[in-house]
């Protein structure tokens, strides 16, 4: 360890203050701090600090994503292979999926981190760790066959317009990963929606069908899956959103470590369940609307709802920041997601738009929650003035 430290110090030498490559210090520091927590000591304020830092928090989210990612890779291979052959081996499916998914992850990280490093050098601040999560989320919510260059363009849009234009990490209004997906969704609709994109090669080969459950419901065709299939994730969909069970495993880690807000996760599912239940009740009058008559508990496990509520809605920067605000914010996300699903056949899944919509409204929710606190204070002043008179 000491030897590595000495080598690193030597490499860093030309990047130190007043030296030739001083400007590029944030880039080299970002690499260095991934090996070592730096020897910085407190200079002002409290002399001792908690062991937590932003890297720890972000890595925790990445760990929480891993079950869903691994399942997503396997499922990408399985959904394709199971339609063209009788038997599918585990490693065969993993291999097939990895060939599709890993390049997307690599492209997302390479492009996104490239921009992050460039902005850190340009603005003279340290590289923020947020993109470690964003960079993994982006490929996980894309269809498996999307061309790599589209992933790259979406990443560029998300990081530049979604984040840096607002002032960088911590300032963005919209969740960057969803900004990337929304960009791809509206810029390349043929690659992002319809019946041919959710299983690898489905648009090329007639033998392969690539419809999602929500697509089938909207079109009124039969759904050949039971609730357990939907819960475990053996269904077509965006790469990592299909397996509710893997997502819940990640959610458990997020909630136990308090990295993700349990308030948002619980209220998100609650909102979706409420809305779906209401539609179930109304559904009797519209027997032909499959989406309305789709049982409410099934609504919770299909589509990207779970993935969105657990990993996207809980992004602390774009979510509501007050405890009360988080309840309202999460609830409305679930509510709108199901409402968009059922009412708008052009968008079979509504979670993406619901989260983006609530991202925009999160500051407003917080504003009204905080107004409650301000009002209490003003009332106190008024009461005091009255007694003084």
């Amino acid at each position, binding site marked *: *360890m000491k030897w*590595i*430290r000495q080598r690193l110090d030597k490499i860093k030498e030309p990047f130190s203050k007043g030296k030739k490559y001083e400007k590029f210090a944030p880039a080299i520091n970002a690499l260095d*701090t*991934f*090996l*070592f*927590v*730096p*020897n*910085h*000591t*407190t200079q*002002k*304020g*409290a*002399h*001792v*600090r*908690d*062991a*937590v*830092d*932003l*890297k*720890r*928090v972000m*890595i*925790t989210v990445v*760990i929480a994503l891993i079950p869903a990612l691994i399942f997503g890779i396997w499922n990408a291979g399985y959904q394709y292979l199971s339609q063209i052959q009788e038997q599918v081996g585990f490693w065969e499916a993993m291999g097939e999926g990895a060939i599709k998914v890993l390049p997307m992850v690599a492209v997302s990280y390479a492009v996104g981190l490239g921009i992050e490093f460039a902005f850190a050098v340009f603005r003279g601040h*340290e590289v*923020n*760790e*947020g993109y470690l999560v964003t960079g993994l989320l982006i490929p996980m919510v894309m269809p498996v066959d999307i061309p790599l260059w589209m992933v790259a363009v979406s990443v560029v849009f998300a990081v530049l317009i979604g984040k840096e234009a607002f002032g*960088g*990490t*911590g*300032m963005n209004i919209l969740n960057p990963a969803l900004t990337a997906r929304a960009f791809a969704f509206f810029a390349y609709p043929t690659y992002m929606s319809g019946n041919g994109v959710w299983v690898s090669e489905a648009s090329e080969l007639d033998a392969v069908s690539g419809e999602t459950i929500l697509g089938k419901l909207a079109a009124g065709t039969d759904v050949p899956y039971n609730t357990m299939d939907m819960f475990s994730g053996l269904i077509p969909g965006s790469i990592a959103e299909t397996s509710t069970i893997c997502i819940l495993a990640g959610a458990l880690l997020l909630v*136990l*470590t*308090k*990295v993700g*807000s349990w308030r948002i996760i619980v209220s998100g599912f609650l909102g979706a369940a409420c809305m779906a239940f209401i539609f179930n009740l109304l559904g009797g009058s519209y027997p032909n609307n499959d989406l309305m008559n789709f049982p409410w508990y099934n609504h919770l496990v299909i589509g990207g709802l779970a993935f969105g509520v657990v990993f996207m809605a809980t992004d*602390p*920067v774009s*979510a509501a*920041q*007050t*405890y009360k605000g*988080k309840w309202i914010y999460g609830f409305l996300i679930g509510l709108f997601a199901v409402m968009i699903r059922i009412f708008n056949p052009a968008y079979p899944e509504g979670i993406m738009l619901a989260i983006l919509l609530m991202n925009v409204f999160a500051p407003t929710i*917080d504003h009204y929650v*905080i107004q409650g*606190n*301000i009002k*209490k*204070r*003003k009332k*106190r*002043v008024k009461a*005091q003035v009255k007694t003084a008179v």
Partner: protein
Amino acid sequence: MSKDIKVKKGLNLRFKGEAEQTLVEAPRSKTFAIKPPDFHAVVPKLVLKEGAKVQAGEVIFFSKYNEAVKFSSPVSGTIVEVVRGAKRRVLEIVIEADAVNSYKEYGTMSAESSDAEAVKTRIFESGCGAFIKQRPYDIIANPEDAPKAIYISVYNTAPLAADPEFILQDQKAEFQEGIKALKKLTAGKVYLAVNKKSSNLKDIQDVEILNVSGPHPAGNVGVHVHETEPINGGDRVWTVGPEDVAIIGRLFLTGKFDAKRTIAVVGADAKDKKYFRTLLGTNVSALVGEVNESASRIISGDMLTGLRLTNNQFVGFYDNTVTVIPEGNNYRMFGWLPFTYNNIHSMSKTSLSWMFPNKKYDVNTNLNGEERALVVTGEMEEVMPLDVYPMQLLKACMTGDIEKMENLGIYEVIPEDFALVDYVNTSKIEAQEIIRLGLDLMITEVG
């Protein structure tokens, strides 16, 4: 009369290096000093020059903008040096102490039977006014104000901090007299916050007792004010440190400015972890000896709010604690991995240290990360017992939005109330500094 205050939000920090409860006489320091920077926003106007002889209790400087606010010497001796910093700002007034103190006589006086004006004059002319601090803003009290209430806390919940009850055990009579004097300064109540579980001071007269329980910052005055008479714009409340009340009491009982100071020396790197009886403004080296500064840090005060000292500097005016802890200028390989390095305390559940709530941790001054943008939400609220939105208030202070700061409760807080926010926040934001700057802005803009 008494009232219970039960604090729910907060965090008790348990670290190694407590002081044992034995009181010893500290070796008499050769030099003492009064440090004007201890009195925030006071511009000192010196009365005595270098080389002048001074008696204990004699005024050495007053506030340039309020002559009634005076500051006295804790010892008799000779002023040997006026240390100045940038822009000739006075940093320290160093006094070489005589072997035995000779005091300036103010004459004894019964606080209870004297009228309020005389009590006030006595307190401020003797320099005891410096012990009285004002909220909002955390500055020296202005004698012309009529405070709504006065708060004293003898319950200190800060990590490793001195126990005021132990300090006051042999000064109870003086403490009572000091309270009687303070009672004359306000038309409202004098509140005394004590540890609900055990306190020898529950029988003190002329006060409203607050029985406090809960984790740090339960002992902070800010919490008590908030739970009893929260501060609105224009209000003034005064706060006095526990041992300072006894000094004021002695002024009335003996006629002398007898600034005894009991200091707990704590922290893993302190050699002699005990309570030392000395005088205000003592040289820190008389208490902790020569400390290797590259390996350890000397802090005047507790480790959350204190000020860093070097060898031969002087203990702060209001401090009852001197902390010596290891410097943390070391690297940790892959220290950012969750669930690793569980030997470092963390409130976050990304470390397993929460499983051992009663373990006493080693602690050093490592920042444990780097400063980042504010990302994580909800953690500051967990350690903030006041009914304010900490993150929103910090952001209002950063942007200097005065109306918002007022609305969000800037009058109710001082930097000390954000000490735990400093400690726990993931982004390593300097919350105390931001609040201090925000308060300074309020002083210049609102006053």
